[in-house]
């Protein structure tokens, strides 16, 4: 089947699934259903109707060619910034959802550093209502403290009831250890994990890149790895003491990974995620002074990057999440020390994961089921979609063999602050299906 290309400016909604759709000859991967073979999946009225070795004779419905592609339950990105409410010039719930779909995701968790912050039932309701009919499931993460000010606990119970899937002051660290202790204690009543932005602000204030040889050579004040590590250590200890659940956002350092590994060995409920940019790039790329190499935590040393790959391999790192952080051109076209932290990530994730992890034998394509489908939903206590007869079709189809560059695709995000515009990628999302809707990624620009 073919879909007309649409611009995000005029796209108002996702397309309905045809009554009957066959995704033909795709490599199905679903660990729970023990699927790891080339099959054809037939979807009827938004539900999986059957899994066949070949397209059944006499099938008359629409077809989507899955030759050479992988079909998995829908991928989930548990760390995105959708900027609405407050910075709709950078991203909206709508454009962010389209960017997620174009990146191969059928669900995201959006962080609360909006304006106003997601620190009340009203904002949770606003986000859920605005995205109710989206193909992409948008799950709000609630702020730990009112206005993310780090001073007073936000109404966590009310927000949990309204549908928050976790709490976090992401973007800013919770400097007050007493408040972090209370947040862990309080949130465990609702089984909400705390997604920790691990950074000692005293150690990182007025600093702009990883501290090491390159920060020295470039004359840019450096953020030491210990600013992240002392916080991971603190919060693991607080987790052990309180019995709460703690998830480390965007882990970036070798000793940070070791701390999580030790915590897991002790049986503590500690999990962590890594971003594609941290497992792909190092602080050396800051030599370009390109402000799209500036993010928090910063790109670390190659030794740290190797430790992240090792952590992905041995299971210490549970999840791959993008930390999609759109910024306007004006903000990023500034001097390095004045530019804001953050890069977009939704639309480059599949390409980086396949080319940097699968192609380099760090992970098998089957392992992506845990890192991109199951683990994020387990951490957030969400149901994991399955490829099985009678289940709602919630699917991600990508082609691991396609090589491409970000500059050659039509991006659906409102912001394009990525260092990967010219970066060679392998593995491209083809389509996502969820909630009776379908999104087909447009072909490369000619």
């Amino acid at each position, binding site marked *: 089947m073919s879909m007309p290309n649409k611009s995000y400016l005029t796209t108002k909604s996702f397309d309905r699934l045809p009554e009957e759709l066959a995704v033909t000859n795709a490599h199905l991967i679903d660990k729970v259903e023990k699927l790891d073979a080339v099959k054809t999946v037939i979807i009827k009225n938004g539900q999986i109707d059957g899994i066949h070795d070949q397209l059944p004779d006499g099938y008359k419905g629409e077809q989507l060619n899955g030759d050479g592609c992988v079909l998995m339950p829908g991928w989930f990105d548990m760390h995105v910034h959708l900027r609405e409410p407050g910075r709709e010039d950078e991203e909206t719930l709508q454009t962010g959802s389209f960017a997620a779909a174009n990146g191969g995701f059928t669900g995201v968790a959006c962080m609360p550093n909006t304006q106003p912050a997601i620190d009340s039932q009203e904002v949770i309701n606003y986000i859920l209502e605005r995205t109710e009919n989206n193909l992409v499931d948008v799950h709000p993460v609630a702020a730990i403290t009112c206005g993310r000010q780090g001073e007073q606990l936000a109404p966590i119970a009310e927000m949990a009831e309204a549908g928050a899937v976790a709490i976090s002051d992401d973007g800013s660290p919770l400097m007050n250890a007493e408040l972090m202790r209370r947040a862990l204690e309080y949130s465990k009543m609702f089984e909400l994990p705390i997604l920790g932005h691990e950074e000692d602000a005293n150690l990182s204030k007025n600093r702009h890149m990883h*501290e*090491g*040889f390159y*920060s*020295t*050579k*470039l*004359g*840019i*004040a*450096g953020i030491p790895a210990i600013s992240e590590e002392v916080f991971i250590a603190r919060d693991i200890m607080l987790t052990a003491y309180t019995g709460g659940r703690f998830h480390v956002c965007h882990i970036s350092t070798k000793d940070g990974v070791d701390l999580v590994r030790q915590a897991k060995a002790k049986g503590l409920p500690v999990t962590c995620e890594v971003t594609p940019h941290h497992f792909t790039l190092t602080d050396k790329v800051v030599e*370009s*002074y390109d402000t799209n190499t500036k993010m928090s935590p910063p790109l670390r040393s190659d030794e740290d990057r190797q430790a992240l790959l090792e952590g992905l391999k041995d299971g210490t790192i549970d999840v791959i999440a993008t930390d999609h952080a759109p910024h306007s051109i*004006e903000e990023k*076209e*500034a*001097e*390095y*020390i*004045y530019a804001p932290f953050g890069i977009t990530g939704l639309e480059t994730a599949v390409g980086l994961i396949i080319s940097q992890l699968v192609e380099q034998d760090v992970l098998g394509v089957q392992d992506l089921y845990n890192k991109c489908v199951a683990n994020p939903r387990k951490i957030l206590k969400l149901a994991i979609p399955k490829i099985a007869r009678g289940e709602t079709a919630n699917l991600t189809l990508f082609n691991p063999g396609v090589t491409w560059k970000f500059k050659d695709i039509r991006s659906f995000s409102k912001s394009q602050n990525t260092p990967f515009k010219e970066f060679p990628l392998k593995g491209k999302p083809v389509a996502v299906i969820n909630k009776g809707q379908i999104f087909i990624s447009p072909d490369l620009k000619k």
Partner: protein
Amino acid sequence: MTFKEGHLLGLEHVEKEDIEFILKTAKSFREILERPIKKVPTLQGKTVVNLFFESSTRTRISFELAEKRLSADSVNFSSSTSSVKKGETLLDTARNIAAMKIDMVVIRHQSPGAPNFLARNLDANIINAGDGAHEHPTQALLDMMTILEKFDTLRDLRVAIIGDISHSRVALSNIHGLLKMGAKVTLCGPATLIPREIEKLGVDVSYHVDEVLSRVDVINVLRIQLERQDSGLFPSLREYHNYFGITRERLDKLTQPITIIHPGPINRGVEISSDVADSEHSLILNQVTNGVAIRMAVLYLLAGGENVNA
């Protein structure tokens, strides 16, 4: 190579042969500066803008004089606040400059990499006059020129850079330049002011100033910014002076005289005592004169000049 690309963004990417050529050219211009009429028509018709986003007196005047003595048309833009704070991006500022058809831009900026940014976005020769704690290449060139007026060669010369290395663009440019020219470089200062992993550049580091003074030929004494003591990097200026200040008593203990340079402006009584700054071993005022010659040479060579017919 940056210099041949038409910019001087830092010494890191300038080759030894180019450094030697700049120093040689500057020597010719130095002779012009001793003449009764100090002006040559070399850059007639060229327009240079001095873009200073950070307050500076001596570097700006030195560049202006160099431009005037080469007969270039020069204009000044000074702003102590960054353009971004005024609401205009550096890119817009750059585009405006480009629209005014300017040939060369001298930029001083508090953000490291600002000159690289201009070089990427402007069709003009860019000269870095100091970008944050990154580089200040003309300062290092004039430092080397001054040292070479006293010593025949920089090869195997032992040079110590003393003071706040972490926040110093002068230090980084000197390190790159001196190492390329074959000198041995030691850094000395409080551990809180020595940036991490700087040894990887090929320098050695010491925290003991007397030990360093006893084994070097030249010291480059850096200015201590008075506000550093408030940021908790060292306890007080008094303690700094007592443990790292270059004083007559310290120098009197040495068996051989030591040559002293300082990028200025001097905090007398902090990093250097007055009698040392004014002593016969101090080349501080020679540096200032050489600064004009070095900047003339850089402007001249970037504009496409090859040999000076002095």
